[in-house]
């Protein structure tokens, strides 16, 4: 089952948000419509973290901050061998955290 990620588009001025906000950043309106957030991203910065929080049984995880073509910038896990700032990647969606009873989905840049 393919999980989807969404951006929240203000119904008055069209400003995109991710993550969700209660009030539109630009015009103050409080109504949003969900639009799919996917596609190509540009890598803004990256890191490899060795000291992981409780619950992660891996030696390290790669993380990155990436920018979509529509201007939205998001954080996500990174599965790239030799990352470089400015490289073009795909924002896929996968399990980023295994929970008890439910898993958490999020961006994995590949």
């Amino acid at each position, binding site marked *: 089952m393919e999980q989807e990620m969404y951006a929240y588009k203000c119904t008055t001025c069209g400003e995109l948000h991710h993550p969700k906000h209660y009030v539109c950043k630009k015009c103050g309106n409080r109504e949003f419509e969900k639009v799919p957030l996917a596609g190509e991203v540009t890598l803004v910065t990256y890191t490899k973290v060795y000291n992981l929080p409780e619950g992660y049984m*891996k*030696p390290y995880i790669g993380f990155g901050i990436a920018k979509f073509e529509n201007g939205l910038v998001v954080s996500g896990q990174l599965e790239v061998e030799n990352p470089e700032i400015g490289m073009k990647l795909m924002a896929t969606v996968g399990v980023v955290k295994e929970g008890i009873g439910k898993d958490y989905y999020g961006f994995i840049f590949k």
Partner: protein
Amino acid sequence: MMIVDKMEQSLRPVETPMVTYPPKYITMATGEKLVIRQIAREEVPHILEAVKPLMTVEADFYDIVASRIYSELLGYYRYRVKDEYCLIGTIDGVLVGIVNGRLIDDKVGMSYHTMTLKQGLRIGAQLFAAKMEYHLDFLNQEEVLIVAESPNGFKRWMIEYELESRPETWHELGGVPTFVLTKALWEKHKATKLGGRRPVKEELLKTAEHPILPATYAQIPGYKR
């Protein structure tokens, strides 16, 4: 002096000749030098004095690790454990850490314990790596069986070295789930985990000759030897 008569001889294990671990030194972040060398059997009673105070410290599982190391080293000293070894670390002549293990056969080793006396400088991590170096690079073994008593141990070895899980193989230490460091995993992680240089200059090695027992332990507030 122990009388080695026929009875005693029959109670002793047949020892496999093992090449001695070549001593090395590692430069700590503070500039101090950590010397790692193997101990001789006769040194065990002295080393046991450093282990003793920690046998009742519950925090960080020191009590079980210290108590088990005590009995393992005693077993080594009294010729009741086959092919056991013990490596120690010293800084400025003071004993700062102890690791031990033994050989199951020429191909498989069994890691026993890692105990850090001086915390905060990654000494435990280096002594563990030295132990693995001994099994896989000097004794030419193929794999080492490892278990962990503390969550810290689990994180530092099972997770960081990506150890292979092999629960069907029982480890001597209580039959808890066994993990294995294979030659392949060692080659993968060695570069980022193993430190140190050889040979150790004579004056530096001399400082490790008669390890000084720590006078105080951060793990035991108020203790003085």
